[in-house]
Structures are given as structure tokens and as C-alpha cells.
């Protein structure tokens, strides 16, 4: 199992600030589907008991019903367990030096990426929709220096607090890694200059 005190590629004196997962409400739909699937064989059993009692007098038919119902129940439970794995193994770990994103897609696809805090440039928290606003969960986008892609925390609780925390930690880490931060900033400036040049050239084209 994965222990928090033994993070992948742990850095010296690294402290864990927070571990975030998707808000539990995001698996509510799954639980409802599961309940419906559990009720189905029970409803079939009850309706047969009320409307077709003769079937229960037949031991062979009953055996068939027990085998089919048992298998159905097992596969529904496994479906729920696999979706729970998908939810539970997705996590974002924020330490005082980096952010680790662990993402599980299905059973056999797993992505682990990390980002050093001194490379963080912008952090955006986004809460949209009625349910998200009421329960205070949403997205946190972390924009890194030198990379165009966002590092995204999906549907985490209290996104505003998380973004504030990341910005504070990034500020502290930047002070410690001043040289690397300057290099990262320079990379971004060069990239932005190139983009600007391309845009200008496109506009000037007849």
C-alpha cells in the first residue's frame, strides 16, 4: 500500500500540507445506480412470489434464479468497487515543495505527475453551478511556468482555500529556489515572446 510518509520520489525534509480528493457527492450518481441495480433482482423475486408462486415450488427453477441472481449481484458489486477504486485512487497531494497528481483511469491506467511549487505562476479556483456553490467544491487550475497546460484539481472541496494555500506555499518555495524560479520565468518570457512574434507575423500576412 501507499504510505503518506513514503511519497513517490520524496524530497529531503518534505512536509505534507494537504491531501485532496474529489468531493464525495461526485460518486452519489454511482451509488443511486447501484441501489437501483440491487433493487431489481429483489423486485423480480418479490413479484414472482406474489404473482407466480408456482415457480417457487419448482426447485430447479429456483436454483436457476439463485445462480442468476447471485452472479448479477456479484457483478454489480464489482462494478461499484471498480468505480470506487477510480474515485479513491485519484488524489492530489500538496507538500511544502511540490504538488503530486495521481490519477487512476479504469483498472490499468494510472498517471502520476508532479509539479515543483516554485514553478507555479497562477492559481485559479472555479466553482460553478448550484450544487458546487452550495457544497463548496470545484476546480483548481494551477498554471505553471514554461508549460502551456494546466495542472487541474478536479471537484475538490473548498477550492478557494486550496488555491490560496498553493499560492502562499509557492511564494515561500520561490524564495528558497530563487535561481530556478528566475530560469522558469525566463523560459515563460521567451515562450510568450515567440507566441507574440507568431501572432504579429500572422496579422501582417496579406
Amino acid at each position, binding site marked *: *500500500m*501507499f*504510505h*503518506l510518509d513514503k511519497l513517490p520520489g520524496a524530497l529531503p525534509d518534505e512536509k505534507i500540507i494537504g*491531501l485532496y480528493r474529489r468531493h464525495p457527492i461526485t460518486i452519489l450518481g454511482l451509488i443511486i445506480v447501484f441501489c437501483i441495480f440491487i433493487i431489481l433482482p429483489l423486485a423480480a423475486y418479490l413479484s414472482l412470489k406474489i404473482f*407466480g408462486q*408456482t*415457480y417457487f*415450488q*419448482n*426447485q*430447479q*427453477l*429456483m*436454483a*436457476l434464479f*439463485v*445462480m442468476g441472481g*447471485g*452472479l448479477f*449481484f*456479484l*457483478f454489480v*458489486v*464489482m462494478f461499484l*468497487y*471498480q468505480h*470506487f*477504486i477510480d474515485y*479513491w*485512487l485519484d*488524489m492530489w497531494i500538496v507538500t511544502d515543495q511540490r504538488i503530486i497528481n*495521481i490519477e*487512476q483511469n479504469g*483498472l490499468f491506467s*494510472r498517471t502520476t505527475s508532479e509539479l515543483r511549487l516554485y514553478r507555479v505562476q497562477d492559481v485559479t479556483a472555479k466553482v460553478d453551478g448550484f450544487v458546487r456553490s452550495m457544497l463548496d467544491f470545484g476546480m483548481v487550475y494551477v498554471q505553471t511556468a514554461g508549460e502551456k497546460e494546466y495542472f487541474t484539481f478536479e471537484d475538490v472541496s473548498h477550492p478557494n482555500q486550496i488555491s490560496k494555500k498553493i499560492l502562499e506555499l509557492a511564494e515561500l518555495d520561490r524564495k528558497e529556489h530563487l535561481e530556478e524560479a528566475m530560469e522558469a520565468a525566463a523560459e515563460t518570457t521567451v515562450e510568450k515572446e515567440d507566441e507574440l512574434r507568431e501572432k504579429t507575423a500572422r496579422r501582417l500576412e496579406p
Partner: protein
Amino acid sequence: MIPLIYFLLAWLIFLAIFMVIAIISIMQMLRYGLAHPVTEITTAFFICLIIFVVLGTLGYLSGVDLKSGLDFTSALSLGKPPIL
């Protein structure tokens, strides 16, 4: 007339497929899951449910004559018990 033993064989094949996928799922959960009570409790619950359902089904089947056949045409006729 289809002997019940054929249905039992089909059930065992599906159960074997289920077991393979379940073992892989449990391995993934235990390998990559965070060392946390939720990881352990959900996995234990999943295993207990499997054992309960499989043993319950086998227990019921132990009291059934598996050599006897099942006639679907009469079994599906409404209101009448199937001919065995």
C-alpha cells in the same frame, strides 16, 4: 429438457471470470491505495460479500438434484408448474 448441471457449469465459468477481475481489482486497490482504514474496510467488505454470495449459492445448490432437467417451454407457461 436441459440438465441443471449445464447451468451450473455456465455459472462456474462466469464465476471464474468474475474472480479474475475481482482479484485484479483488489490487487490494484491494495497496491496503489493509500494506507488508510477506508481502503482496508472497503476491500474487506468486498471480499466478505463475494464469500457470502458464493457460499450461499453453493449451499443452496447442494440441496438441489443437479441431474434433473429443466423444461423451459413448460416452465414459461403462465400459471402452470413446469414438467420435470
